[in-house]
């Protein structure tokens, strides 16, 4: 409990003085300088002065590097960008971006971001989260922030493990996985982040891979340009607690055979020889080989990211190795009014109807009477 006498004797000034020296050994987290105009910014303008403290070899570095690279190309003034995160390795991300940043509490980044975006729709708001943060403790906020369709970019680093707490299974860990907390293997079935995002009415749904640098950059840029919620799942390697977790499809030598790069307007083709494709067989997808049994490109499913009906996007989200290639790219990108725009519209409509609120009138509203 407080000792109130301290409040009156100016002790606080002394407290402030005590640590002036502590300041000198670490640099400030503030640039202290205004960023160049959007057209002249470089990647370096988005690198903060803080030492990056992820484990050497972590997939997070590649994602950070990519996001920093994409930022100058978005044409958004640096001061209008806010990164918000929860808790976990990935959630340290905002400290390394020389933008505004808010490192929140476990699972709640989407809720904090919602408040920021509603309060100032002019800001470019980014949520950085992990599989535990977004889908376990923050599962509820994941669903609701997405369904509201705020214009927020939402990047989930999926490493299928709890890294910061040193290696327990996560909600995306494969069934039966042996971890510190599951020595006999997990007995809960994993959740599919894209399925959940689509079920939550996400207007933009995409997936990429940390080591596929070029692809990731394209996806991040597309997400930033989408008006409305933009959800990206990034497969991210945790080289300490879940190393090589995605090698079975993402490793360079097998990737072209096991990953399907989705491209809008193009038939779904994959494989080193570019001769494998996805075709509908009744209500189910199947893998076919072009040139065999008279199959041509015309038989293949053509990707359409603008379909209002989410069924095909959902079907693609369910395709997995080894039965299917692992799809990456943009699954869905549809337009829908955003939450913050509608919120502002309602306020403007109210003012248009009855004029700006008058405090005097408000206080004197209702049945009043005068005592002489």
């Amino acid at each position, binding site marked *: *409990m*407080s000792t*109130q006498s*301290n*409040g009156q004797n100016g002790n*606080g000034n002394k*407290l*402030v003085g005590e*640590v002036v020296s*502590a*300041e000198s050994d*670490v*640099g*400030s*987290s*503030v*640039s*202290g*300088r*205004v*960023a160049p105009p959007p057209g002249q910014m470089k990647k370096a303008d988005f690198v903060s002065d*803080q030492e990056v403290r992820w484990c050497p070899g972590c997939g997070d570095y590649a994602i950070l590097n990519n996001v920093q690279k994409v930022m100058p190309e978005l044409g958004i003034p*640096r*001061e*209008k960008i806010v990164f918000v995160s929860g*808790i976990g390795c990935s959630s340290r991300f*905002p*400290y390394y*971006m020389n*933008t*505004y*940043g808010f*490192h*929140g*509490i476990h699972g709640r980044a989407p*809720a904090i971001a*919602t*408040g*920021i975006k*509603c*309060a*100032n729709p002019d*800001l470019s708001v980014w949520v950085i989260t992990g599989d535990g943060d977004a889908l376990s403790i923050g599962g*509820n*906020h994941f669903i*609701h922030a997405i369904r509201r369709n705020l214009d927020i970019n939402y990047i989930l680093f999926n490493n299928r493990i709890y890294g910061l707490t040193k290696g327990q299974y996560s909600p995306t860990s494969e069934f039966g996985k042996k971890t510190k907390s599951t020595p006999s293997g997990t007995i809960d079935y994993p959740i599919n982040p894209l399925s959940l995002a689509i079920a939550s009415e996400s207007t933009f749904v995409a997936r990429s891979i940390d080591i596929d640098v070029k692809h990731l950059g394209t996806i991040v840029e597309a997400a930033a340009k989408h008006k409305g919620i933009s959800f990206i799942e990034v497969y991210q390697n945790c080289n300490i607690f879940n190393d090589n977790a995605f090698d079975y499809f993402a490793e360079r030598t097998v990737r072209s055979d096991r990953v399907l790069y989705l491209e809008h307007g193009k038939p779904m083709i994959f494989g080193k020889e570019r001769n494998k494709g996805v075709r509908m067989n009744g209500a189910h997808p199947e893998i076919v080989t072009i040139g065999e049994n008279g199959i041509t490109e015309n038989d293949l499913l053509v990707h359409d990211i603008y379909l209002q009906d989410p069924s095909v996007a959902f079907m693609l989200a369910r395709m997995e190795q080894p039965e299917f290639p692992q799809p990456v790219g943009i699954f869905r990108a549809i337009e829908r009014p955003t939450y913050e725009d509608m*919120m502002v519209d309602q*306020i403007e*409509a109210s003012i248009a*109807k009855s004029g700006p*609120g008058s*405090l005097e009138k*408000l*206080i*004197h509203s*209702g*049945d*009043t*009477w005068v*005592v002489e």
Partner: protein
Amino acid sequence: MSTVIEPPVTQPDKHLEELETVTIRFAGDSGDGMQLTGTQFTNTSAVVGNDISTLPDFPAEIRAPAGSLPGVSGFQLNFSSQDIKTPGDQPNVLVAMNPAALKVNLPDLEEGGTLIINIDSFTPENLKYANYATNPLDDNSLAGYRVHKLPITTLNMNALKGNVDLSRKEIDRSKNFFALGVLYWLYDRPMENTLNWIRAKFAKSPELAKANEIALKTGYNFADTTEVFTTHFTVKKAQIAPGKYRKITGNEATALGFIAASQISGRPLFYGSYPITPASDILHELSRHKSFGVKTFQAEDEIAAVCAAIGASFAGQIGLTGTSGPGVALKQEAIGLAVMTELPLVIVNVQRGGPSTGLPTKTEQADLFQAVWGRNGECPAIVIAPATPADCFHMAIESVRLAFKYMSPVFYLSDGYLANGAEPWALPEVQELPQIEVKFHTDPTTFMPYARDAETLARPYALPGTPGLEHRIGGIEKQHITGNVNYDPENHHLMVKLRQEKIDRAVNDIPLLEVMGEQSGKVLVLGWGSTYGSISSAVEKMQREGKSVSAAHLRYLNPFPRNLGEVLAAFDTVIVPEMNLGQLCTMIRAKYLVDAVPFSKVKGRPFQIREIVRKVEEYL
């Protein structure tokens, strides 16, 4: 008294008697419209110039089984020609619309009090629901009261049947207006106010409007023309301070106070909330005022509601969240984040009976510890509490002022009694409202996220969107001045002390505690929050009797006013009435080493004046 079905043709000459104060309780099934009836009587009494104070008392179930004891809904109203501060200890009049309402409320009725009973509802089935072995109307158990047995359902049906195009069931639903009409005559109230309300409310359902209007007038005329009542009463205008007034509940005043804070600070209001009794009316009220730029966000849960408010604060709006005790329990981690990031935030807790779900519709003050100490770590926040429904307006403004000035979460502890209770509100002049100055840092050359104001120790408020001030905040310990992540032991010790010191310094910004009555003496009754009315009424009464009793009421619970220690030391005994097991009492015992006496009542109901009088008398 005999039951009269048909009104006589001649109008008897009735006697009009003057009364100073009357307490009426309307009680019926939760579907009987008792809250509405009570509210209408209150509005009319306020408009005719009486002082008023109300206590709605309703079940947590929306519609418990009809006629059952848990389904009883009550509304108590005290109206007076004097200055009153409570809804009255004991009703003088009980309106009982069914046996269950009689059973639940009769023990509270004063000896010899007036009972107005709808005898039509005293069917064998309803008597059984109310656990009556014999019919109280016949077994002489009501002999100690003045009983008026009225067949309200039948009278109302006879009056409306054929006059409105409604089913019997729909007609029956207007019988509360018949009862209200009877009471309006009995206490000499005009019907205009309610008739206007009916016409506006049912503008789209003319038949319902007509039915309610006929019911009200018929009830009035019935009481006037029959011999059921030989006397009726009048209560003159109250001798209260001159000015313009309106009736207001605590929740309404809270919502208006936050809108006012937004207007005078120039910062838009963002209200993040999840529906919860008894706080939801604040969300309803604020969502109606979009023309003030108010943004209301009905979140997916309590945690999202407070986190969104924190986000809005970070972006420069007034971050406000409102809930009741269980919701605060869920929000606490996020409130800790606001303490760590040193952002302004206001948390409204309309306290209700706990723990857990507890008594959702009943009042309690048991969340004081939760507000002061309920988070992990050393996590100080400012805590304030309004004392009356109208005081909610001013304390809401005060919470926003302190949150911005100290860059800190502020708890605003209302309760169910304040929230739903009503009193006349002396309307303030807008230009006399306190000023709220919000300063934003804009200069990149002098910006350090955790540098501090020399006077308040508040850190600078730097909004996203300001060029050159890009910085990162978060829940991890921050280095003094730079705001960088920092795990240094000395730094942590310093930051813990700084955060505490900042809250302690708010003491320089809050008024001294005032003593009502002599500045020293035998007994001081110390209260906080909604107990103000009962405590001050009891103490004033005893002071008029020449007893050595004073009262003091805390609106600031953390930090306490600077002179609290001196005030306590000037009395032989300090008694602390609280609707908890002695939380404020524990705090002052710990801080001031005073042998204060807790006086606990945790029944979901406010203190009666006489309960406090009796307790104080033990120490005189």
